[in-house]
């Protein structure tokens, strides 16, 4: 009896928090702002401030260790007339378009393959993610070694499949077109697992009954994919594409390790060129202008995709 009364009386005691701070944390508005404070400070200090600082740098002629003065849009005008910069813009667009579409195509294919039950599926799913997990710079070195003009294992395989002869000295990273192809291959290699696993998760949310219903109505495999799977997968696909396009557009490490932008700037991207000018030669303001030039293009891509995602999701 006494136990019961103790328990019931305790349940109705509303303990007021002690002290002014405790009372403030009880208020949703104050608690919300307090919880967000560390994040806001961090992002303000190391994202918003550098962004403003980048704009400030881009309109001056600052170099390392030498504060510059205001020069207006001179840096951007110089870029407009810079042939290497134009090449970098073209390369980046080509690289992004080809690499992301290939990743989507191969990733979707792999996801469809993995979306059946077979022995060792979980095992395989774990292993194919490795290219995405392993530090990019380190795995890119393995590719650089595989592309080595003298010791290339790829050439060895091609030779023994009788696709090339000893006289064909395929110099993967040394010739303009081949170098771009090689860089794209490595990017695709790294990105396919991410696409495949995310799309697989999307595929698994599609009810098999829809497929059965379509099959009963006489839809063949391709028609089922085109009219059932693809439309249902579209929202997930758009989000993955958004991330992938941004990451590919701003890629740095892969090209830095494989070709360094060469031969003759034919694989130069925005980021590698910005690094070369801004850090390599110390022209901070020019480098800042180059990397800022990514921003409008990126913004456009993001807006187009976000609008599209919203449309797909509301339909």
């Amino acid at each position: 009896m006494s136990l019961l009364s103790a328990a019931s009386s305790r349940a109705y005691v509303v303990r007021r928090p002690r002290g002014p701070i405790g009372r403030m944390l009880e208020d949703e508005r104050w608690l919300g702002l307090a919880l967000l404070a560390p994040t806001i400070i961090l992002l303000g200090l190391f994202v918003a401030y550098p962004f403003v600082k980048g704009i400030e740098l881009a309109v001056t002629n600052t170099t390392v260790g030498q504060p510059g003065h205001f020069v207006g849009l001179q840096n951007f005008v110089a870029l407009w007339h810079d042939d290497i910069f134009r090449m970098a813009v073209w390369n980046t667009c080509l690289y992004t378009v080809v690499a992301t579409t290939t990743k989507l195509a191969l990733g979707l294919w792999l996801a469809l393959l993995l979306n059946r039950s077979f022995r060792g599926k979980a095992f395989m799913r774990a292993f194919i993610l490795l290219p995405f997990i392993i530090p990019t710079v380190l795995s890119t070195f393995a590719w650089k070694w595989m592309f080595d003009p003298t010791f290339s294992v790829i050439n060895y395989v091609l030779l023994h499949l009788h696709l090339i002869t000893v006289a064909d000295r395929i110099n993967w990273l040394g010739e303009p077109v081949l170098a771009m192809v090689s860089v794209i291959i490595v990017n695709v290699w790294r990105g396919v697992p991410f696409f495949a696993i995310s799309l697989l998760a999307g595929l698994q949310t599609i009810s098999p009954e829809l497929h059965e219903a379509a099959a009963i109505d006489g839809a063949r495999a391709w028609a089922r994919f085109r009219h059932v799977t693809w439309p249902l997968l579209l929202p997930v696909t758009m989000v993955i594409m958004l991330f992938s396009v941004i990451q590919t557009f701003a890629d740095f490490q892969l090209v830095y390790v494989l070709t360094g932008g060469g031969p003759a700037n034919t694989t130069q991207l925005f980021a590698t060129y910005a690094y070369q000018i801004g850090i390599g030669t110390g022209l901070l303001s020019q480098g800042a202008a180059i990397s800022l030039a990514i921003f409008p293009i990126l913004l456009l891509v993001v807006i187009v995709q976000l609008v599209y995602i919203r449309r797909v999701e509301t339909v």
Partner: protein
Amino acid sequence: MIEGARWRRWSFFYVPVTAFVIFLLFPFYWMLVTAIRPDRELYKPWSSPLYQPFWTLHPTFQHVHDLLTQTLFSTWMLNTMIISIAATLISLFCGLFAGYALSRLKFPFAGSIGTGIFITYLVPQTLLFIPLSDIIRNFHLGDTPWALILTYPTFLVPFCTWLLMGYFKSIPKELEECARIDGATRWKAMLFIVFPVALPGILSAGIFAFTLSWNEFIYALVFLSSPTEKTVSVGVTSDLVRGDVFYWGQLMAGALLGSIPVAFVYSFFVEHYVSGITGSVKG
């Protein structure tokens, strides 16, 4: 799926799957073989008739030994470990609080702050590294681990917040309300009721953040300069290539050893990692 003839199964399933597996995993096999192959076998041109690339009959640990004794590799490993763990902890701390606030509490500007965090999620590191290098210099953080410990969270926090918001939304509000009726403060309900339930989400976010910080390259390349401060990725790129000479055996040994911590963490938490990926794109 209606079972087709056997050749269909082969050509539409086994052959493409095998091709994918070879394409995706061969580079790792190649790293391993190169790392244990003696130099005299390593440097034979691909066109030479004696070239036997796929295995070696004389495995050696010479490259690994040289890597650990003649270079600063173990220092780089330690640096990367400290930086990654510290950055992950900071990101989880910020991400947990921010995710909880944005998914549960009503307060002014909540919507716009949430959008702001989402936008920083989309800002690539390569956009900011030049002004940031200037700021790091002005703050006197250059060439110290703090340069990375404080900047890595800029791309980890938005991700953790995003992921954890999804987890918090899936936890029923009643759980917290019960605790509050029993007299717990908001703060305590969050700390002792909601966070423990969100543990799987915290693990996913933590593992993801750890692998992302271990992976990061451009900030580490720009902000650190002395050999003893470098991270694995930067050390391998800059210090294992002397002049124009590539020591491929050592490089591949370094790539392999440098990947082990990530692969190790990943192998224990595959499911959490996968749910991290799918959670991050679900939005």
